[in-house]
Each structure stands twice: as C-alpha cells, then as structure tokens.
C-alpha cells in the first residue's frame, strides 16, 4: 500500500516533513513560511558543547523546535511516540500507517543507504516520512531526496535505533487531529517574527544570536594558538558545513528566511518587509563570501594568503548587519 502523499523536496528536513505532512491534510504552506512560523532562524556558537571533538556552531534552534512551534501556532494536534523495544516500534509504525496516516520518523543518517558516503556521520536528528509499505519494504519521503525512496524494514530499524549523541530511540510522530486548525493570520506571523528577533537580539548570553556571531569571530582569532594550524582549519571547515550542508537553503537559512520575509510582507501588506528581505539577502551573500574565503584554509588556491583575522572581520561585519536588520524588523512588527 502507498498513501496518496505528495513528496516535495525542501532545503531542511524538518521543514520539509512538516510541510508534506500538513499538505496531506490539505494545509498548503511553503517551506519559507514553515521556517518563519517556526522561528527557525538562529545563531549559536557553543565552545563547551562538542561534536566530533569540535565546538558546535548552529544556525537553527534545537532539532524539533520548528516542528513544535509551527504545529502549536496552527493548533494542529500531534501524537508522539518513543519505544524502548525496536520490534514494538516497527509494529506500531505499521499499525498507524495502515490506518492511512503518514508517519514522521526521527532517524540517524550514519546508516542511511541512499545518503552519499561523505555524509555518513553520527547525526541523529534527521526527519523522514513513511508513506507506504510493500512486502518488506517501506516507501519513504525524505525531503532532501528528489524522489521517494525505499528502505527495507531491517535498514529502517537500524536508522531508527542509531546510536551516538541524542539517539532517536524509535521516535515517531503524526498529525492526530486538525479539527482546531487555525489558518495562518496576521497575529501568528507577527508573533513568530518577534520571537525570531527576540532570540537574535535579546538573549543575555554572548553565545547566541547576533552577539554569538561576534563571539565566534573573537574566538576564531585565537584558533591557531588554541588548536594549531590544522585544528583551526578543521574547526573552520565545521562552521562552513553547518552553514551550507544539506538543510539550510544556503547561507545558514538566511536566504530561506529572506524568502519568508518576502512572503510575509505580501501577506501582511507591509512593503517594508520586502526591503528587509533584500537586506537579509545581501547578508546571506556576505555569509557566502565568508565561506568562500574560509575555504582557502583547507583548499589552497594559487597565490592566496589568508589570516583568521581577515575572516573574523567578515563575521564582525555580518554580526553588525544582522543586528541592524533584526532591530528594524522588530520595530516594524511592534509598531501599530
């Protein structure tokens, strides 16, 4: 059996699964709108939390946060599960699937067969949607893949029980009711934007939001002293990967959020948001410029010399520009 489920690609797996699930229930939203309503743009640099021995830099809130905010705002009811027994986890999945309900799953990418081998790290917060089963094979809609894929039940079980940081433990979820659905309205969009502004501007810690970008810049200047040439380059490579690796729509969600501001501007009848969208696009281009220059630390191009101060300066500028954009955005949203 296979559900009549429209598979659409998305930049980010979580946005993609939410959007495709909602679409199945005839709630049609764009990926940027999901990102915006889910307040999915952020920045944090946490030297004290490490993955593969390197500080975590992130351009989005915690995994699952977008999903929770969007469904809460829309008043869509979600049922979530977690299982200690893998066989029970598979049986429950079948039971729900055969009630013609598409099921979202949290999986690890390490053993995901259709991923390129270069992407097989122990990342355990990938979202996919199971939309059918034929014999021993599940039909899967993974938003970062251009077509529907198939996974054997053994493979699916393995990725649902991936190990490492934050193991998924068979987590799954589905929409249980849309009876109280609230269509997107002005208030909702406004609140979601204000939440993003608040997170980017007002968290009183140096690691988060626009301050976090400056903090990363400051730390970066000392990387060579702290980690040596090679270690510093590895750290920089890690930042670039978080900015650009599958899931951000380019430049750490900045372009996707700019697309949202454009859509929101039209929706709210506020042309000023279109200008801010363009400004955020320009900032996205600055992030790309940063990545391009940073890449020379690990891929030498001819005749180029680079210093960490140089790329750190670029980040300081980005921090300043983002501060301006989100301050203006907050002002517009708070007025009237």
């Amino acid at each position: 059996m296979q559900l009549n489920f429209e598979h659409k690609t998305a930049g980010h797996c979580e946005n993609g699964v939410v959007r495709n699930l909602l679409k199945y229930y005839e709630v049609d939203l764009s990926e940027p709108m999901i990102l915006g309503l889910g307040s999915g743009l952020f920045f944090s640099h946490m030297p004290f939390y490490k993955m593969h021995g390197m500080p975590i830099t992130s351009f989005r809130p915690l995994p699952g946060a977008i999903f929770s905010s969007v469904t809460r705002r829309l008043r869509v009811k979600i049922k979530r599960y977690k299982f200690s027994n893998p066989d029970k986890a598979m049986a429950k999945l079948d039971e729900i699937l055969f009630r013609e309900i598409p099921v979202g799953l949290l999986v690890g990418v390490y053993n995901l067969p259709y991923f390129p081998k270069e992407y097989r790290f122990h990342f355990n917060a990938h979202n996919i949607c199971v939309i059918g089963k034929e014999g021993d094979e599940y039909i899967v809609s993974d938003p970062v893949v251009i077509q529907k894929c198939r996974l054997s039940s053994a493979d699916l079980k393995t990725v649902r029980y991936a190990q490492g940081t934050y193991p998924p433990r068979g987590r799954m979820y589905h929409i249980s009711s849309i009876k109280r659905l609230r269509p997107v309205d002005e208030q909702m969009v406004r609140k979601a934007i204000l939440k993003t502004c608040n997170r980017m501007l007002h968290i009183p810690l140096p690691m988060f939001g626009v301050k976090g970008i400056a903090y990363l810049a400051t730390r970066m200047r000392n990387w060579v002293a702290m980690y040596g040439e090679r270690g510093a380059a590895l750290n920089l490579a890690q930042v670039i990967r978080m900015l650009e690796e599958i899931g951000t729509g380019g430049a750490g969600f900045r372009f996707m959020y700019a697309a949202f501001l454009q859509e929101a501007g039209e929706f709210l009848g506020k042309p000023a948001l279109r200008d801010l969208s363009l400004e955020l696009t320009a900032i996205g281009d600055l992030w790309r410029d940063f990545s391009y220059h940073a890449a020379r630390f690990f891929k030498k191009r001819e005749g180029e010399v680079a210093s960490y101060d140089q790329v750190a300066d670029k980040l300081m500028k980005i921090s300043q520009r983002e501060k301006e954009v989100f301050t203006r955005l907050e002002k517009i949203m708070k007025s009237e």
Partner: protein
Amino acid sequence: MKIKEVPQDGAILESTAVRDVCYALDEDGTYKEVLSVGWSPKNEAIQFAWSAINEESAKIRQEVMEGKLSPLAYHLSRLVMTPRILADYTGFSTRKIKKFCRPELFAGLNYEVLEKLAGALNISVEQLRSID
C-alpha cells in the same frame, strides 16, 4: 543570491538522489527554490574533514601492522566510529571495546563476538580481521 548564481559544483551529491534546495532571486527579485548539486567551498570543507579522518586511519593502520593495535581500532577510525558508539550498538561496555582494540585480546575473541562487532560495523568478519 540570484538564480543564475546558484552553484552547481558536483563532487559529492551528483551520483546520489540527494540535492540541496537553495533559495535564490529570479529576475523580478522574487524568491524561488532551485536545486543544486553542491558548492565548492562546502564540498571542500567536507573533503577536508574526511582527509583528516583518513590520515588518522592510515596512522592507526600502521600501528596495526606494527602489532600495537588490533584491526578493530583501524575499522573504528575508518568508519568514524568511537568505542562508545560501538558499545551502544553491540551491548558490550566501552571498556571492553577498548580492550578489543589490543591485538593480543582481539586474537582471542571467538567467532560470535567477532560477528557481533562486524555486524554493528556493517562489514564481514573477514574484513574485520584484516586491514585491507
């Protein structure tokens, strides 16, 4: 970023069905989704991370040949596994997995244990015993 500036630098994704969705501006300045097969700075960052892993594995492989470590240590490194994560997959303790990385202890392991380790690493027992 404009649509015509969306990079299409294939290196990692083009042989798979995985793609990056980029958001870029069309000629009227309206955002559109565009599929991309990758971008050089990102590809280079990923390849650089792997080159560091490969170098580390080569070093460990050398130590295996010198009889200082067991082949398990090599496979752990090559497959970006850690003793901790392999312990979680197999049910052995982290301390045990670390012990299995010592050649004299590894040599004494029975087939059942080897099978369990190899299974969790998604390789065959023959592969686990060798460093090819």
